[in-house]
């Protein structure tokens, strides 16, 4: 109970928001809009899982938004050329993994700080994409949207897949050796090395992992609309990092879990529809999200201070 105080407090905040919505704006809970909200957040959840792993190893990746856009556009172009979905999906994942490997090579191989490396790759990828595509949309063939199923079924598939993925990864992080390696490296890389783990290799693989997940998320996003926007990934990195940090994953590495990241994501995702239902101007969304991030880190700071005393 005490060990998961941080995660439970976020859950409490989420519950408070939901109860508040139930009292003041019950329309929030009508099934179709709620399902649409969850569907929209499903790709974000997949990237957030990857980001949690990256932050637990005491790194950060702010190039996910650009990787997401690049994967979306490339996958869209392949799909538009008539590639079957079963080939486009692995292609997108592989492309994401490749881009992640570049980050991983620079961070783990050359020991450069991940924040600056991924800042550079973020801009390079985004501007490269703009240069090649000039902001053009990609029109997708009909069979891609909702995987050729009905909208309802497609939405359920996406939400279900993301939740299954979350549960599997969360359990793996706790019970599989590879997951414990990630925590070990983030807690103390030197101690991990002495224990026989290769920290640089773990870091490298984690960056490949988040790249692959971004490719997967791009596909999940692709299936939701008839065309691909080249800027679909803009701002994704902030959203995901905010969700993970709010969920109690410590930016100093080694602490936190995916359940927390999931709760944090839901809390932040509720802000925008809650504002609409409560008739508050939507322009406040970014400010409120920023305030929630600050609140979460301040809570962490106060807690560690009390523990150190």
């Amino acid at each position, binding site marked *: 109970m005490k060990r998961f105080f941080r995660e439970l407090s976020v859950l409490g905040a989420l519950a408070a928001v939901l109860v508040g919505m139930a009292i003041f704006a019950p329309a929030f809970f009508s099934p179709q809009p709620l399902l649409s909200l969850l569907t929209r957040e499903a790709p974000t959840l997949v990237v957030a899982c990857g980001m949690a792993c990256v932050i637990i190893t005491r790194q950060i990746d702010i190039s996910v938004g650009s990787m997401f856009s690049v994967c979306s556009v490339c996958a869209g172009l392949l799909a538009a050329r008539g590639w079957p979905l079963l080939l486009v999906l692995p292609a997108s994942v592989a492309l994401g993994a490749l881009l992640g490997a570049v980050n991983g090579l*620079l961070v783990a191989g*050359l020991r450069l700080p991940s924040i*600056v490396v991924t800042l550079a790759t973020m801009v390079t990828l*985004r501007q490269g994409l703009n240069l090649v595509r000039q902001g053009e949309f990609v029109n997708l063939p009909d069979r891609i949207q909702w995987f050729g199923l009905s909208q309802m079924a497609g939405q359920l598939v996406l939400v279900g897949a993301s939740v299954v993925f979350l549960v599997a990864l969360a359990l793996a992080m706790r019970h599989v050796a590879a997951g414990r390696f990630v925590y070990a490296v983030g807690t103390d890389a030197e101690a991990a090395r002495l224990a026989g783990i290769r920290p640089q290799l773990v870091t490298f693989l984690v960056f490949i992992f988040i790249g692959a997940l971004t490719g997967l998320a791009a596909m999940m996003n692709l299936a939701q609309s008839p065309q691909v926007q080249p800027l679909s990934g803009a701002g994704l990195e902030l959203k995901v990092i905010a969700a993970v940090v709010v969920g109690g994953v410590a930016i100093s590495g080694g602490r936190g879990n995916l359940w927390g990241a999931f709760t944090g994501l839901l809390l932040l995702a509720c802000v925008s529809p809650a504002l609409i239902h409560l008739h508050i101007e939507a322009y*406040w969304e970014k*400010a409120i999200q920023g305030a929630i991030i600050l609140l979460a880190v301040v809570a962490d700071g106060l807690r560690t201070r009390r523990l150190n005393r």
Partner: protein
Amino acid sequence: MSASPSTQTRRDWKALLTRHEMLLLYVLIAEWLFFYFAGTTTNRRGVVVGFGTLDRQFDILRHSCEIGLLALALTPVIITAGIDLSIGSLLGLCAILFGKLWHDGGLPIPVAAGLTLALGALAGGLNAILITALRLPPLIVTLGTYSLFRGLAEAITHGAITYTDFPASFLFVGQERWLGLPTQAWIFLGVALGVGLLVHRTTFGRAFRTIGFSPEGARYAGLPVARRLALVYVLAGLIAAIAAIIYTARLGQAKADAGTGYELFAITAVVLGGTSIFGGSGTVHGTLLGVAAIAVLKNGLACLPVVMRMNAAEEMSGLLTGALLLLALTAGVLPKILSRFRARHHAPAP
């Protein structure tokens, strides 16, 4: 065995000529010459147009002032091993506050500008308090304020209002020349001189380096670490506010999206200029050279006929800036990697 005086001098010269800043200067000169010859043309009426004209050079100076100011603000921050991602957003927020104070508040321009500077310093103070009092990592604090400041700017303007119709006397700051240079260049040079003196000629600057090198060591050496760190972030907020006013004067309008993405160019300029992202070392003149390198690249590309035909100056310059940053980072750690590699291969046989 001490070296004779003449080899000593020669070695000094060699060290000076191969310093990071000197290398950057060579790159800058090469870059400038390339654009001078490739980007200058004569139009049909026989007038020289493009990169080589004096007007264009002033334009480069004019356009690099805001990013240059932010880079100056970031130099001490990065020297202390910190980072401030919020300055681009703070530029936007300050521009809006300035416009609102003048337009809706009815304050005269100098008063509004003074208040904006105070608010910028206050916003920097928010970062400073969170980072020093609660010992939170600067990266995540400024990521939060990055979102908060931009969000406040959007909330104040409802995402739509743009403040315009500033008086000509104010636009003079951003659009005219004074004593031969664009007016804002004088402000920029003044701030550069101030930050340069602070970092290189005072005990404060020495404290910044010590903190960046080892915060624990700085504390044992009796330095007031929290106060020095706070100063760095408050200063960054203040300079971002100055940049906001210059930005408003140059464009003649204050919008909520002012300065979006500027933090990236500023960080690139600082890192290009040889300031270590791990903290502990860096120079202000290096940052100035970094700013110049980026500004020349951006404007030079816009003058190249190939890029003009593709209409892709913005994208090309962003792409090359990102690549340049990666290159500078790699070049920075390469000697270390090579020596480690060499040490491994020349290890004595067991």
